[in-house]
């Protein structure tokens, strides 16, 4: 009964194939496999071959290390398959018990909207304790594009995607999480420059090129430096404005710009800060978030520009 009556369930067939390869000390040719499991793979040779290739690919995709060799001797030229024990759990074998315990603690304190990380910890031998905790970091990482981009980055494979209504082909260099958003640091082949893309703005699926097209990442590329820390600097150059901040916001803004950014402290508690205004959209968003608690002092052209924006909105020019 058993396997024969269940032969049409591909899940059972894959597990049977795995058991067969694992239980044989010698690599098994396709003929040997079919001699033993033929009934499960159907009647026609072509159908058997197709199903076997599909099962093998699926198992490999799950991480099962099915390797092959070309035999010599009586079976010269035939391909045979075996489980390569060296392909199992390489990462797990490198981590110590203490390190796995630290990852286990990390998994209880960080939420990423998916089970991916927690499951990895469990598979490495950790135990997740869902205790009631007073501290939690939530970092949304539920987009399926993320692990795909990560894989492309790790394997140096070209990525094609649609972004801002344009098709882009890029060399992915790494993923950054900043201020609740994920970004892809990459080299854009059409623009011929390094660019940072916001992952949630990628439209549709990302398409990953083959390993045959693998690229080489710039050796001195530093992922952490890929994105300007200050959004107001996004376009690169260094145009500066001096902005007076009311005392109510002085502590917060001083903390944001750092000591070097505060150029004057007034007796009434107001401060003057020097900030980049190269990216006008970011600068405007930053400035107007403080409403009338902030005022551009200089240079005159930036001040006039701000007054112009305000006049436009005040007049209801839409």
């Amino acid at each position, binding site marked *: 009964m*058993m*396997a*024969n009556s269940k032969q049409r*369930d591909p*899940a059972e067939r*894959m*597990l049977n194939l795995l*058991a*067969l390869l*694992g239980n044989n000390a010698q690599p098994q040719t396709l003929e040997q496999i079919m001699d*033993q499991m033929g009934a499960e793979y159907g009647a026609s040779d072509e159908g058997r071959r197709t199903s076997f290739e599909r099962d093998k690919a699926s198992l490999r995709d*799950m*991480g099962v290390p099915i390797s092959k060799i070309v035999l010599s001797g009586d079976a010269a030229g035939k391909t045979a398959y075996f*489980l390569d*024990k060296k392909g*199992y*759990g*390489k*990462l797990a074998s*490198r981590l110590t018990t203490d*390190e796995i315990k*630290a990852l286990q603690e*990390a998994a209880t304190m*960080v939420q*990423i909207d998916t089970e*991916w990380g*927690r*499951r*990895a910890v*469990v598979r*490495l*031998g950790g135990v997740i304790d869902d205790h009631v*905790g*007073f*501290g*939690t*970091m939530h*970092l949304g*990482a539920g987009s399926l594009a*993320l*692990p795909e981009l*990560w*894989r492309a980055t*790790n394997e140096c494979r070209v990525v094609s995607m649609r972004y801002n209504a344009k098709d882009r082909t890029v060399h992915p260099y*790494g993923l950054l*999480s*900043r201020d*609740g958003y994920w970004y892809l640091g990459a080299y854009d082949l059409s623009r011929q420059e390094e660019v940072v893309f916001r992952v949630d703005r990628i439209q549709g699926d990302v398409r990953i090129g083959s390993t045959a097209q693998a690229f080489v990442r710039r050796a001195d590329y530093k*992922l*952490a430096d890929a994105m300007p820390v200050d959004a107001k600097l996004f376009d690169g150059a260094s145009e500066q404005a001096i902005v007076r901040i009311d005392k109510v916001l002085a502590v*917060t803004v001083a903390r944001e710009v750092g000591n070097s950014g505060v150029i004057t402290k007034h007796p009434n508690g107001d401060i003057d800060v020097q900030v980049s205004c190269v990216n006008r959209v970011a600068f405007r968003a930053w400035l*107007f*978030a403080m*409403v009338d608690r902030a005022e551009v002092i200089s240079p005159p052209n930036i*001040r006039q520009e701000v007054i112009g924006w*305000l*006049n436009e*909105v*005040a007049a*209801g020019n839409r």
Partner: protein
Amino acid sequence: MRGRNSWRRHIRKRGPRSAKVRVQNALHIMPWVMERGGSTVEEIAQQFGLTKEEVLEDLSTAMVCGVPPYGGGDMIDIVVFEDGTVEASPSQSFYRTLELTHVEIFGLSVLADAAAQLPGMRRDKRLASAIAKLRDFLGGDVVDVETEQATYLDVVWEAAEKGQKLEIEYLSPSKDVATQRTITPRTVFSDAGHWYTVADDDLSNESRTFRIDRIQDVRVTGETVEIIATTALAPLWFPDDGTLPVVRAHLKAAAAWVVESYPCRDVTENDDGSFEISIVVNSPHWLGRLALRAGSNIVISKPVEFIDIAQRTAQTVLSRYLVASESAD
């Protein structure tokens, strides 16, 4: 006495799962159970993020598999008892742990990198060492997580941990006021890039959510209270209890950040990338600030008292510039 495999009648189908998913689950669960010398359905479900029904189904698939001729001794030896206990004998083919999938390694890298920035974990040598090995295994830094390092995060975190009362100076931009208050942090959490604490607030006598980077100054009072075990939850940004006004607005595509940054509802995206939205208004000051930042990219259609809020806010700011210019003259 435990009934061998009599649990089968409890299997409840929750919808089809692919053969690949079922095999993958079985290949992850079996070595885990074998390594421990046994487990329970409930524990497996909790650890692997599956339902108990899914665990039973996946184990059920595995236990009818083996090697030809599929006799009693040829099958994978897994037993699930009626009380949910699972036993599995070591098997040549199934006791080894498969390498993690790329999705799992990505998730693990994110967890580890993020945790390394938490108070109490920043100097954890075990975690640092695990991250170094992960990077080495992956061949470099392909994930970089940076979270806000609010100045008083550690103080508030410790207060939540120890039940300490804090005196704080807190800036509320939505109301444009700074207040002095005594709070008892109960939970600390981060969301969308910022750190928050849910705390007992002596000023309002309520539990309130405070954004930690808006704490301007803090003093540990030395007074402690009983720690209440509770779970950190994501914030309910604006109390949407029907008492606050709801604004209806049209956003041009250039103001898509409003949809991404604020809890809008009834959102409709138009073909040209613009949006129709409704948003709960916490305070007129907050809405004025939002409208000014969005400029000509937002058009508020109702209620009538907020239609011209961008113009009014712009005039308020403009008056500051004009006064300054007149003083200079």
